[in-house]
């Protein structure tokens, strides 16, 4: 059984799915479609026939959408095609506000610092074997949390709470390799920490000395500050809001309100909170 309203809605959705039409443009085309249908219906055609002929007259939705794409100029909802690649022109999401990104980072850093203190406590208080096991599993769990949350839910707790998400340039969910690439600075740091902690706990320094780790931390601090500074400059300069780790991984940080279907915070509480505990 043919339902006209259903068919028209389906047709409209196909147009909008391309992301190249504004709802207003779809309204206008829908008015045209309906006008055409009602005229044809008065010429002995059934509703279904009238719908099919009208749809044919209006043209293939994909070709139409492509024609509308050519019309789009960089504006509120669109990023300029110039930087950093043409695929961005289709990016339908709003870049996340810098204040939110900052708040999210601060939240995540607080969690990291707390866990770091926990690691130091473990290393100092437990039997060496247990301390190594504790610190290594803590660090691995943290890496799994970071990459897992990023790939599965588009961001760590800080991002979830501030309502921003990481996605690919075309707006799709990021892949595992993008998740790893984006977390490179964190992973490198974790690796160094693991080497340091295990040696510190065992009391034997196979790699470096306890003295050389002071230099290592200074280096981390200097590198970290440089990285942060460059990221801030990139975030302010580029309209797409990509920091270094976004540029290397081909990701964007966008407002989560653009993903209405995904109430990520709801899902988060049910399944992922234990990871942090």
């Amino acid at each position: 059984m043919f339902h006209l309203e259903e068919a028209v809605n389906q047709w409209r959705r196909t147009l909008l799915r391309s992301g190249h039409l504004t709802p207003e443009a779809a309204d206008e085309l829908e008015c045209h479609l309906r006008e055409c249908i009602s005229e044809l219906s008065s010429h002995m055609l059934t509703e279904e026939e009238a719908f099919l002929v009208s749809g044919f007259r209006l043209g293939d939705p994909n070709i139409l959408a492509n024609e509308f794409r050519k019309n789009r100029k960089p504006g509120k909802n669109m990023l300029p095609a110039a930087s950093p690649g043409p695929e961005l022109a289709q990016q339908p999401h709003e870049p996340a506000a810098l204040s939110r990104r900052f708040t999210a980072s601060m939240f995540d850093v607080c969690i990291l610092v707390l866990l770091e203190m926990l690691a130091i406590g473990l290393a100092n208080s437990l039997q060496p074997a247990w301390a190594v096991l504790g610190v290594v599993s803590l660090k691995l769990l943290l890496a799994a949390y970071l990459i897992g949350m990023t790939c599965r839910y588009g961001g760590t707790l800080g991002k979830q709470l501030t309502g921003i998400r990481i996605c690919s340039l075309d707006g799709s969910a990021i892949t595992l390799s993008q998740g790893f690439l984006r977390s490179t600075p964190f992973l490198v740091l974790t690796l160094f920490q693991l080497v340091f902690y295990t040696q510190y706990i065992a009391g034997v320094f196979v790699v470096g000395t306890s003295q050389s780790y002071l230099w290592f931390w200074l280096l981390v601090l200097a590198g970290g500050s440089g990285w942060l500074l460059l990221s801030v400059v990139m975030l302010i300069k580029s309209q797409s809001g990509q920091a270094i780790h976004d540029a290397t991984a081909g990701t964007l940080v966008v407002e989560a309100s653009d993903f209405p279907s995904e109430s990520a915070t709801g899902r988060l509480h049910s399944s992922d909170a234990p990871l942090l505990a």
Partner: protein
Amino acid sequence: MINKELVAASSRALVLSILRDGESYGYEIIQRVKSLSNNQLNWTDGMLYPVLHRLENDGLIKSEWRTSTNGRRRKYYSLQAPGHRQLQEEQRQWLAVHDALTNIWRPHSR
């Protein structure tokens, strides 16, 4: 039937000319084009809208949503001052092409 390239090239001039006669909306513009050209100019209906939106972006025409007397919501377009000027220019160019072709097709010039 007129080929695609010519249909596309003439779309601006046609839309501007139709709107010079008074405001109109997409569906009606399509009907006018068909009848004016004795069905020779066959547009894919939907393709008119990107053209209209471009003309509006260029400030040549202006649009307004209104409900017609029979209760239908329609987006009406009307020609603006820059549109009038643009139309004169389009007219000049089309007539120049037309004249060139007419001159060369005159019987005595063969």
